[in-house]
C-alpha cells in the first residue's frame, strides 16, 4: 500500500488509472533586432485570437459550471487589456525584441509581483497571469493545446493545471484531478469544486510521471492518493464509494422533483445554514428554501458588534441568491454554548438557562434594533422571514413585534425600501412555549421547532453533557407529544409549523411527522435529497401516531 498526502481541494472519492497530462509548452526564443511593426502586428493578432478563445471559454464555463466560473475567464480577458502589462510588452518590442520574448517577460514581471504579495489569494492569482501569458504565447507560436489521449475516463495528473486547461479538457474523460503543485485557492480547485470532480493538489515531487498508468484511489476529503490499498483500507474506500454512488443516484433522480407524498401531501424541505457561503450547497442539493439561517456567524467571527451594513449585505446576499424562495433568518442566538467576548456576558452557573438568545436582544434594544433594521432592509430583495429563538412567554413575542414595528416606522420615515408583510415566526424550544402554543400562534405567522433545545429542556438533559447516553433520547414520547401539541395549536390558528432541529432529518420519524401534519422540515443541505426520496415513497394517510406512546 502506498499513500501520498496532498491537500484535498474538492470532495469525492474515485478509483481509476492515473494519466499524466503534458502541456505542449514551446520554448521561447529571445531575439533582438526584430522588425518592430511586424512583431507588433503578430502580437495584435495573437491577442485578438486569445480574446476570442477566452470569450468562447467563458461561455463553455457558464454552461458547465455557472456564472462564477465564467467570470474567471472574463477576468482573464480583462488582463489582456491591462495597460501596464501591454506597456511592458511594448517597451520590449521598442527595444527590438521579438514578440514571444516580450510577452513572456511581461507576464513573468506581473506574475512575480502578485506571487510576492502576502495574501495567499493574491499569490494564487499569479497562476492566472501565467495562464493568460501562456495563451498569448501559444497563439503567437501556433501551438495547439494538448488533450487527454486515453480510451476511458482517467485520473488526470499534472505538475499543475491552469484554469483554462481544466475547463477545456473533456470532462467525460476526467474522474478526478491530482497535481504536484497548486492550492485550494487556485482557480483549478474552484472549477473542480463547481464541476463536482474530486481533486487533490500539492502532492509534491513524490507524485511524478512514474505513476502514469497505475491504478489509484483519489480521496478529496482527506487529500490522499492511495495505491494498492490493503484489505481494511480497500473495504473502507469501497464503502465510501458506494455511499457516494447512492448520493449521485439521488441527485440524478431527485433534483427538480416535488416534496410530496404519494397521496399528495406537500412537505416543504428547507435547509439549515450558518453563513452565506452555504447557499451554494443549498442550491446544489435543490433545497426549496432556507428554514434556519443562523445569524450568529456575523457575531462570532467579529471582534466587535457587526454593523447594520455588514449584516444587511449578508442577509441580502442570501435572500437574493435564493430567488424568491423563503429564507428564514433567526435573530441572534448566543449565550449558552456560544460565547462572544465583546458582549461581556456575565459568567453563569447554568448558561443554558441563563441570559441567552432573545433574552439578550430584549435586554439590549440597540443590538436588537441594528439586526432588525438589517433584516427588514434585506426583505426588499427576496422572501425574508424573521424568526425569534428561545421564546417562553407571550409578552416576549409582543415585545419583539413592537421592536419590529418601530424599525418599520423608522425605515418608512427614511424612505428605505422593505417588505411590510415580512413573515414573523418563533422557535418552539422551551416546554413553556409548547404549553402556551395556542396563545403564541395568535401572534405569529409560523412556528419552527428546535428539537435540540426542546429535548434538553423537556428531559432535563444537558446537551453538552456526554455521559447522559440513553437518558438523552430525542425519540422520547414526551418530546413527540410536545411536537404534536405544537402542530395542533399551529393548525388550529391557521399557521404553518416546521421542524429545524436535527430530528427533522431523522427518517425513522418521518411517518410520525406526516401523521402530525408537519408542514416543513429544515435539514442540513446534504440531507435534502434522501428526505425527499423518503417523502415521495410515503403515504401520509396511513401514517400513525403510535410513537407517541412508550
Amino acid at each position: 500500500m502506498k499513500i501520498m498526502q496532498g491537500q484535498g481541494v474538492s470532495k469525492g472519492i474515485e478509483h481509476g488509472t492515473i494519466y499524466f497530462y503534458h502541456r505542449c509548452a514551446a520554448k521561447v526564443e529571445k531575439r533582438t533586432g526584430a522588425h518592430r511593426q511586424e512583431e507588433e502586428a503578430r502580437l495584435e493578432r495573437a491577442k485578438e485570437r486569445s480574446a476570442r478563445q477566452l470569450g468562447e471559454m467563458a461561455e463553455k464555463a457558464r454552461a458547465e459550471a455557472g456564472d462564477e466560473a465564467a467570470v474567471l475567464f472574463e477576468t482573464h480577458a480583462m488582463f489582456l487589456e491591462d495597460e501596464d502589462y501591454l506597456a511592458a510588452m511594448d517597451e520590449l518590442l521598442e527595444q527590438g525584441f521579438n514578440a514571444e520574448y516580450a510577452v513572456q517577460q511581461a507576464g513573468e514581471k506581473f506574475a512575480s509581483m502578485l506571487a510576492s504579495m502576502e495574501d495567499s489569494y493574491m499569490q494564487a492569482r499569479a497562476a492566472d497571469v501565467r495562464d493568460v501569458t501562456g495563451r498569448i504565447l501559444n497563439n503567437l507560436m501556433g501551438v495547439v493545446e494538448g488533450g487527454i489521449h486515453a480510451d476511458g475516463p482517467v485520473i488526470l495528473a499534472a505538475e499543475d493545471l491552469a484554469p483554462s486547461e481544466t475547463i477545456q479538457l473533456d470532462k467525460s474523460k476526467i474522474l478526478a484531478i491530482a497535481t504536484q503543485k497548486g492550492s485550494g485557492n487556485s482557480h483549478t480547485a474552484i472549477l473542480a469544486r463547481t464541476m463536482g470532480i474530486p481533486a487533490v493538489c500539492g502532492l509534491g515531487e513524490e507524485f511524478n510521471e512514474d505513476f502514469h498508468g497505475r491504478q489509484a484511489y483519489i480521496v478529496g476529503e482527506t487529500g490522499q492518493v492511495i495505491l494498492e490499498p490493503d484489505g481494511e483500507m480497500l473495504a473502507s474506500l469501497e464503502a465510501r464509494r458506494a455511499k457516494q454512488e447512492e448520493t449521485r443516484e439521488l441527485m440524478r433522480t431527485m433534483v427538480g422533483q416535488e416534496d410530496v407524498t404519494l397521496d399528495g401531501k406537500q412537505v416543504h424541505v428547507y435547509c439549515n445554514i450558518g453563513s452565506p457561503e452555504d447557499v451554494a450547497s443549498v442550491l446544489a442539493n435543490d433545497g426549496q428554501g432556507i428554514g434556519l439561517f443562523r445569524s450568529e456567524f456575523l457575531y462570532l467571527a467579529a471582534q466587535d458588534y457587526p454593523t447594520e451594513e455588514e449584516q444587511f449585505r449578508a442577509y441580502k446576499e442570501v435572500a437574493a441568491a435564493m430567488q424568491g424562495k423563503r429564507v428564514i433568518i433567526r435573530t441572534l442566538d448566543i449565550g449558552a454554548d456560544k460565547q462572544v467576548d465583546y458582549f461581556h456576558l456575565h459568567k453563569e452557573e447554568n448558561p443554558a438557562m441563563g441570559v441567552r438568545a432573545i433574552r439578550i436582544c430584549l435586554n439590549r434594544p440597540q443590538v436588537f434594533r441594528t439586526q432588525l433594521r438589517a433584516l427588514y432592509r434585506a426583505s426588499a430583495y427576496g422572501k425574508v422571514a424573521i424568526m425569534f429563538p428561545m421564546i417562553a412567554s407571550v409578552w416576549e413575542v409582543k415585545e419583539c413585534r413592537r421592536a419590529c414595528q418601530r424599525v418599520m416606522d423608522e425605515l418608512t420615515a427614511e424612505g428605505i425600501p422593505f417588505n411590510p408583510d415580512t413573515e414573523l415566526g418563533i422557535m418552539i424550544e422551551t416546554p413553556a412555549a409548547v404549553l402556551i402554543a395556542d396563545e403564541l400562534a395568535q401572534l405569529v405567522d409560523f412556528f419552527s421547532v428546535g428539537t435540540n433545545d426542546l429535548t434538553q429542556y423537556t428531559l432535563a438533559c444537558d446537551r453538552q453533557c456526554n455521559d447522559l447516553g440513553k437518558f438523552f433520547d430525542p425519540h422520547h414520547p414526551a418530546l413527540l407529544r410536545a411536537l404534536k401539541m405544537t402542530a395542533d395549536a399551529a393548525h388550529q390558528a391557521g399557521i404553518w409549523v416546521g421542524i429545524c432541529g436535527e430530528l427533522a432529518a431523522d427518517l425513522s420519524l418521518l411517518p410520525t411527522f406526516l401523521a402530525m401534519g408537519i408542514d416543513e422540515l429544515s435539514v442540513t443541505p446534504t440531507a435534502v435529497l434522501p428526505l425527499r426520496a423518503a417523502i415521495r415513497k410515503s403515504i401520509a394517510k396511513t401514517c400513525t401516531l403510535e410513537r407517541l406512546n412508550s
Partner: protein
Amino acid sequence: MKQFSYVIQDPLGIHARPAGALGKAAKPFAGTVISVAKGDKSAKVTQLMKLMGLGVKAGDTVTVTAEGPDEQAAAAAMEQFFKENL
C-alpha cells in the same frame, strides 16, 4: 476632478473578480481617467494587475478619483459600483 472615499466591506477586498468587473463598469467612460488610491499608492482602473497589487482588504479606505470630460457621471457610476459590489 471628482473624488469620493469608500470603506471596503467585501471580505476578500479588491480581488480579481471585482477588479475585472470594475474595469468593465468603467468602460463607458473611456475618456475619463479613473483611479483608486490606497494610502500613497494608486492604480487606474485600466491597470487591472496593479489594482490587485494594491492589496486592498476589507476595512481599508480607498479614494476613488475621476478626472476628465465625464467625471461627474463616472464618479457617480463608480460610487454605485463600490456600494453594490465591494
